[in-house]
Every structure is written in C-alpha cells, then in structure tokens.
C-alpha cells in the first residue's frame, strides 16, 4: 500500500509548495493545530449578507407557503388540535392506501385518528426492506426545519423524519411542519444546527445526515421544460401546524 501513501504525500507536498505553507509549518504537521491557525483567517471572512430575517411571524409564514407553492407543493394549514384530522383529510384525498412512516412520529398524529382505521395501512419503518418501502404509495414525516426564503424543508433524519430511503421511494410525501420550525433565511437554519448557539463551538452537534427538499423532484433537461417527478416523490404535500402566536 506504499503507492497510496506516496500519492497522499505527493499531493499534499504539491499543495503546500503552492500555498507556501511548507516553509511556515515545517516543524510540526498536526492537522488539528494547523486547522486552528486557519480558523483565525476564517473568522475574518466578510459576512455582510443577511443573516437574520426581519419579517413578522405571519409574513414569514406567508412567504414560506408562497415559495412552497411555486415549487408545485400542496400546502394546507391547521391548528395543533386539528392535526390528526388534517392528516386524515390529506390521506383520503390522495387516493392512496399504503403508507410508511418513521417510528418516531408523535403519537397524537395518529392515536385515535380516523386515518388509522378507515382502510389505510400505515407501516412504521423498523428497518423495512427496500422492496417493502418501494411498495408503499406514500410517506408521512415531520421535519427539522423549514426555510421560508427558499421554500426548503430540511430533514436531519431524526426519529420523526426517518431514514433517507423512506422519503425517497414512495411517490407521495406528506410532511408536517410546525410554524415554530420555520425560519426566514438559510443562515438562521444553520444557527439552529448549533445547539450551543455559538458557531464553531458546537461541532459535535452538527448533523451527520441532511436532506433539503425544495419541492417535488424535477428535471428541465429536455428543452428546459420543467417536469415534475423523476425519481424522487412526484407529490409533496405540506401541513403547516400553527403553533406560534402571530404578529411577534
């Protein structure tokens, strides 16, 4: 395997020669230490872009809905106590019967809800085979965050968001987003990724798996004509749960 280490050395030497770091850091080659020095320069990067939105809660929610709809996503709103009913309505309207869901979705989404009994079949993903997920006609999940500015839904694949494959194979995705999860700008989402609230000091909390969904899968490869639904879900439905006081 010496050829392997040789290439590593060769590439890194070429890089260090080019960046002039070879001379500066010849004493110790400690990745952590050198990355530490680099961090100083990183802090000096000019960040004059919008890092925090200034919209009211209701304006932010309007924006999120508007942007989702521009991607051809279906959006409905409901109050927290009406969520199970809203899910049932969506499922019924979908004309589909076999669904999957991550095992961690909150019980109040389905306990005593009509859709658990009325001829719908919902399998929880406790390590389902790919073939079984492929059989499902739809999937129901929560999310980590919503970004109003770009109409993006972020999954970190936690207990209520599920493994990546379950939001990929079924053709119909119903995603429950609480309004308190919606931020205005993308940088605010990155702030929420840091549990400590201080950037650069919470790396252990950064997500390992992330999927951003901005509308149903699409392509414009043939004559730039946008076609909805290629390999990912063709239909994206969003239920927005109003768990925030408007106007703040």
């Amino acid at each position, binding site marked *: 395997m010496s050829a*392997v280490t040789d*290439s590593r050395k060769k*590439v*890194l030497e*070429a*890089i*260090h*020669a*080019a*960046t002039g*770091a070879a001379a500066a850091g010849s004493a110790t080659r400690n*990745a952590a230490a050198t*990355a530490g020095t*680099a961090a100083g*320069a*990183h802090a000096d990067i*000019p*960040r*004059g*872009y*919008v890092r925090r939105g200034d919209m009211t809660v209701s304006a932010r929610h309007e924006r999120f809905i508007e*942007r989702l709809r*521009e991607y051809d996503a279906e959006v409905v709103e409901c109050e927290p106590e009406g969520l199970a009913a809203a899910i049932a309505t969506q499922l019924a309207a979908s004309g589909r019967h076999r669904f999957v869901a991550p095992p961690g979705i909150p019980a109040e989404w389905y306990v005593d809800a009509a859709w658990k009994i009325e001829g719908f079949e919902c399998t929880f993903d406790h390590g389902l085979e*790919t073939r079984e997920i492929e059989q499902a006609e739809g999937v129901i999940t929560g999310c980590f965050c919503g*970004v109003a*500015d*770009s*109409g993006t839904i972020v999954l970190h*694949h936690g207990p209520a968001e599920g493994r*990546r*494959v379950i939001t*990929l194979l079924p053709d119909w995705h119903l995603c429950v987003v609480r309004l308190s999860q919606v931020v205005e700008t*993308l*940088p605010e989402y*990155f702030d929420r*990724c840091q549990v400590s609230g201080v*950037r650069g000091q919470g*790396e252990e909390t*950064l997500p*390992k*798996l*992330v*999927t*951003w*969904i*901005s*509308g*149903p*899968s699409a*392509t*414009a*490869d*043939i*004559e*730039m004509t946008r*076609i909805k*639904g*290629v*390999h*990912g879900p063709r239909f994206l439905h969003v239920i927005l749960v109003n768990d925030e006081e408007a106007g703040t």
Partner: protein
Amino acid sequence: MSAASEHPILDPALAPPFPVGALPMLRNVQLRKNVAHAMDVIQAKRARLVAEKTDWQALRTAAAAIKDETLAHLGEYLEQFEERCTAAGGHVHWAADAAEARRIILELLRKEKADEVIKIKTMTAAEIQLNPFLEAAGVRAYETDLAEIILQLGKGEPSHIVVPALHVNRSQVREIFARTMGIKDLPDDPKALTAAARNYLRQKFLEVPTAISGANFLVAETGGVTVVESEGNGRMCLTLPKTMITLAGIEKVVPRFADLEVMLQLLARSATGERMNPYTSLWTGVTKGDGPQNFHVVLLDNGRSSILGRKTERQTLRCIRCAACMNTCPVYRQTGGHAYGSVYPGPIGAILTPQLYELRHAQSLPFASSLCGACYEVCPVKINIPEILIDLRARVTDQERHTLGKFFDPMYVGLRAANVIFSRAWLFHAAQWMGRLGAKLVTRRDGWIHALPSVGAKWTQTRDLRGLPKQTFHAWWAERGTASQQVGGSASQRVGDAASDPTLSPKSGEKGGTTSREAR
C-alpha cells in the same frame, strides 16, 4: 442527425483548436437554435431570482472569501476533512492524476466484485474519462441523470456542465429513447420522455449495489460530503447501494458546515435559476442502517495544485461549477459547448482546461473570448475570468516564442518588424509613406477598404477598414505650428476625424461572424 457525422472530441489532448472545432457547430442551425433557447430560459430565470436577493453582492463577496481562505490553507483543510471523514467511517484516497484516480476506483470496484455501477452526474469523472476506462475493464457504468442518459444512450458528448444535453431537442431525445429502450409508440413530449427514463432506471437503482458520485462540497469541519441535484437520482445512488465511491477535486472543500449557508444560496440561483434545487444531500462517513455502509472518497489533484501556485490563476479554483458564465457568454451562445474540446466548456472551461493540462493542450481556448466580462459579472464566487484569460494568452504566446515555428507566424514576424520600425523615426516615416502608398491601391472610392491582400484578408473578411485620412497627424501637427492662428477651429475638427477609430465600420456591428457586404 447531421451532427453525428462530426462526433465532438472532448479530450483536450486530441481535440482540434477552438476555431476549427467551432466551425461544424456554427454551421449546425438546429444545434444553435437548441443552445440559444436553453440559454434564454436559464438566463431569464437567473436574472429574476438574483434581482430578488438584496444581499447578492455580499453573498458573492463572502463566497469568494470562503474559497480564498480554503485555498490559502488547502492542505490543512484537506487533512482535516480526511481525519473527520475517516473518523465517521469513510475511507479517503488521494490521486495525483487522472490515471491514478481511475486505478483507485477500479480497484475498489474489483474488491466489490462489481460489474455494474450506477452514477450520479459528475463532471470530474468525465474529466478523468472514467466511463470508457471502466467499460474497457469490464464494468458497465449506468448514468442516472436524465441528461446523462440521453448522452450515454445516444452516444453523445456533454456540451454544458449543468444541463449537458441542452443541445439535443425533444424529437432527438425521442428518437434515442425509442431506439435504445425499444419503445415503439413514444411521443416526443418531455413528460413522457422523462417517464421513460424513470422506468428504464428504476430496477437499476434497486439492484445495483455500487454507486459513483461527484461532490459539490466537502466540509472539513465535519468530514461531510454534499451533492446538489434535481431529479432524485442522486438520492437514489446515495441511499440504496451498499458501496458509494465519491470522486472530488481537491478544491471542493469548504472549512465549516455553516459556510454552506453562503454557497448554497448562490449555487442554485446561478446554475438553474431556482431559489433552491429540489434536493441537497449531505452525508458524513457511514450511518448504521441508513445508506451505503461502505464509503470511499477519492481526492483528485490532476493539475489543480499547479493552478494553486499561481497568484492570478488561483481564483480559478474557487469555481463551484454553476455554469452561469457559459449561460451568459456570447461566444458559448454561438458555438455551444463541443467547440471547446473539453468537458469544461464556456469561459470557465477556457481558463480551467488549459491550466489542468499545464498549457500542454487547449492553448487556443484562452483566445476563445471577446473579453466582454459578462462571465465575471455573473460569477457567484467572483472569478475574474477576463483577467485570467489575458494572463493565459500571454503564457501561451511566451510558450510559442520558444519555438522555431515563430518565424513562420505573420503575427510574430510583423510585430518584430514593428518593434524595429517604431524605435527609429526615419524608418517609421518611411514605412508610413510606403503604407499610405499601398493603402491608396486598396481604398475604394467610398473611402473604405473592403479587402486587404494576403494575411490582411483575415482582418477584412469580417470587417471593413476606413481608408487613411488625407494627412498624417505628424504632417498636420507640423502645419499647425505655422498656421494655428488662422485655422484653429477647423483643425480641431480634423483631429477628431483622424483620431476616430479606424476599425469601426458598419460591418463590425454584425453578429455571428457572417459577412454581408450589403449590410451597409
């Protein structure tokens, strides 16, 4: 399809120089129509979405600074990425050149006993000509991006880095799909064609256990890899197989996870004119129970470190492959991508390709530009492409200066002669006198030169030259000294005449290089 007879060559070592490569494209009316349509659509969408971003310029500035910081400490960030990715269960490999990257990937595939592999669109794999190599080694690569399927089944070549099949229209796609997938009654409506591609690939996604991808970003802080896509084919490849091999140029790294907040606001808007592309995936090493359990990253140098060492050219490596530069380029719009003889066409290709080959190939590309600067204006990471083009032109010219062939180059001989003549006043006057005499022979009665003989014809082929004024500036100046009192007013009028640009003529206003003598 007439283009089939002129199969484009995208290996810079074998491709013809740009002016030769561009000719068949310029003659292909259908291709130019397809390209112009695609460019119009993307540009209009991009312009609308960039305009709504009030902080667009601040985002560009931040993005350029993030990439500059990465490049300044590239070795450290790559080592950090390697350490974190390895800690998360990934394997990191280093490839100094294309041949080594191909060998590493093939060895990994052999270890998996793979004779089939599914691929997410990656220009880096195209750069190292991975598919033909794998095929020769008995591994069949299935492209999964719709545009790449069109090209693979139709045996075409990419002409754009984001929408590689934009030069193919719907009826051509219909023909390719009907023939290769054996579908009899396939309509040419994009919806039906897309559905055909979905069905064609569905089983492959579920069955083939090995996948190859590129990377949009590598995150040093976490060891994570990001892929940006639209169709979901990427997510299929990232999620369903057992083994994933990611090929990434060494410049793809960003220092921190949160740096993506800048990059990903710029990328989709610049590339496809969307606020966000439908799917962005990030994964870190391997995750138990979710996705491939065997993950490899191949870090590719292949000429990049040599670019890193040059002050002006280093910014080339900021590129995030959004293709906004080619979408806006007046040259690309006319020629399409194949003329560039590289998988990287357009303005970024004109600077990247020759540099990846250390100017051994593709020397004509830095000249394939009008230096209008539109590419710089739209570049989300502020690469000053015109500046680099000029620098590369100088380097190419310097290179040629060291060969004997220079004595057969009219430009070289002419400029050397000018060098001698301009440094001696009497020679200059003599040459001027002779030149005026010669110019009289070719100047028509309307005061314009329509055709120059010999090498001068290259100039007048596409533009007219204004005839020389009756009097030289020198003569006028001398005369003015004696007679300034009387003719001051009219003299300044004549200076204006003499100083007006002699190359500006009605012909130069035309587009596309076609010559129409009647245009005036």
